[in-house]
């Protein structure tokens, strides 16, 4: 964890056990204020459980967490939660009510003045300004998702946790939501977005958290990720220490050691590299060039983790 950085979410050894199985396994997660945190993981990896824990919907088995530097056990946590909005799994709406009635109802329990202008504006901002007396049960999945976002915005949150927000949206809906997220982030709202659509996450995320089987494998900024994903050469060897030392002697500077391979992003061809290592008495049998995207990076990370 970097020092002197303001975190809106910070977990410490956070765990949740269901039927003796860790759904969340000692997670130490940090979300920087003003960031868009892309939360990446396969189905059942623990993303939703972490969001549920952070929102107080589930109680941690062990570990703790801070929201806006306030510990979950603090009496101030209820006031802090008021700064946060979340969609967990799917937006929670009253099906027998219209879009306007749903927002009016939310205003009441949020303790906000039921301002008709604010409600109309919120609906317009998500493209639901003209739904009239149509009740939510007759809404499409995409419309419900957008109404869920409008509901979140009512409270003027400082942190929004969105669990699979792109689900059910058509391509134009996805693009609109992306623009909305970027726009709101510019206004100072921090986001945690879990999504399977990694290509979409890549367009908005400033930071990433990769999770698998309840364990947070890695937290990385988009700049660092870009660096790690750029074109490079990966080599595997039974004695990585020896190889690393040889690479330093050769004069290569952009060398990164991973648990089961070494990655080189210096301007050198695989053939030249093999030749130079051969001259140092090292024979490499497993060498490959790589240019990965977030998805491949994640898959690589899971593989690396499993092999580790």
């Amino acid at each position, binding site marked *: 964890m970097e020092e002197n950085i303001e975190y809106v979410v910070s977990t410490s050894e956070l765990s949740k056990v269901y039927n003796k199985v860790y759904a969340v396994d000692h997670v130490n997660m940090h979300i920087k204020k003003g960031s868009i945190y892309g939360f990446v993981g396969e189905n059942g990896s623990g993303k939703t459980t972490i969001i549920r824990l952070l929102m107080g919907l589930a109680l941690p088995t062990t570990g703790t967490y801070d929201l806006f530097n306030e510990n979950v056990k603090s009496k101030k946590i209820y006031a802090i939660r008021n700064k*946060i909005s979340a969609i967990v799994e*799917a937006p929670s709406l*009253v099906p027998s*009510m219209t879009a306007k*009635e749903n927002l009016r109802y939310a205003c009441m*329990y*949020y303790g906000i003045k039921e301002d008709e202008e604010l409600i109309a504006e919120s609906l317009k901002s998500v493209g639901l300004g003209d739904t009239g007396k149509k009740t939510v049960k007759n809404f499409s999945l995409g419309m419900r998702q957008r109404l869920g976002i409008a509901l979140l915005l009512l*409270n003027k949150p400082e942190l929004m946790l969105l669990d699979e927000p792109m689900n059910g949206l058509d391509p134009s809906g996805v693009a609109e939501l992306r623009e909305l997220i970027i726009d709101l982030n510019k206004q100072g709202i921090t986001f945690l977005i879990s999504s399977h659509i990694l290509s979409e996450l890549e367009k908005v995320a400033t930071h990433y958290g990769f999770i698998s089987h309840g364990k947070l494998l890695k937290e990385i900024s988009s700049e660092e990720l870009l660096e790690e994903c750029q074109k490079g050469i990966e080599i595997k060897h039974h004695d990585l220490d020896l190889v690393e030392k040889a690479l330093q002697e050769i004069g290569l500077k952009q060398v990164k050691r991973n648990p089961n391979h070494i990655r080189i992003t210096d301007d050198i061809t695989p053939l030249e590299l093999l030749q130079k290592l051969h001259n140092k008495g090292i024979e490499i049998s497993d060498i490959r060039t790589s240019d990965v995207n977030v998805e491949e990076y994640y898959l690589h990370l899971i593989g690396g983790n499993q092999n580790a």
Partner: protein
Amino acid sequence: MLNLIKASLYKLFRDKTFLVTAIIGVVLAAFMVLINYGIGALKGETMFMSTATPGSNFGLAVPINLIVFTVGEFTYGTVRNKIIAGLSKTKIYFGLFITGLVFTFILMGAYSLLVVGSSSLISGCDIEAIGGIKFILCYIAYVICDYIFITALSVFFASLIRSIGGAISIVIILLVFLTLLPLILLGAQATISGGGLAPDHWSMWINPLYMTGFYGNNVFAIFASSGIINFFDQNVQMVCAGIIVPLIWAVAFVVGGLFIFKYSDVK
């Protein structure tokens, strides 16, 4: 807390369950009055005794629909939204209970007024035949306390099980059993001892629905009309038992429900 109750009532009055229960109430009220009129048994005082009895007619329809409404709060995610909005689970549970009380008393009150009022208008009401104003006031107090208990019980099982079928089954079985229990125990006592059918039985200190179960039961009404027992006399112990016992049970279910809700996860 006030915002929460305001929101819950806003939702309640727009909820189909409330509307459907109200329609059931009006239809059932008309049906009860017509049937009793048809068989020549329509009397204001008789209808007063039987209308609000838990465990029968509309007395069963109200908790059933209250459970449907409360389970809906969990399944539609409105409870989840309230937790996310930063409301404490204590406030949310009390909000559910108070909304349940409003649900129960509006519907039950309107139904009772409709049945007793129309019966009294059609066939008159002989207050003295049911022990006079003192008994009527005591009985109203018993009914109110019983429905506070029934609301606490319904909200408890609805939020514990969060399944309409399961919660309804448990609550209905309990309500029917508790209203029939006076008949079973007093009947057994009368059979064993060969008489002595008195309203103030020891089980009134345990059974929250003892008084309404006893007085709403036709079998006892027959004894009353034949003058075998001093039916409508209310001693201090009976009044205390009829009011305090259901309230103690109600508090127990509210506190127990709150405790379980506070330490359980919400989907």
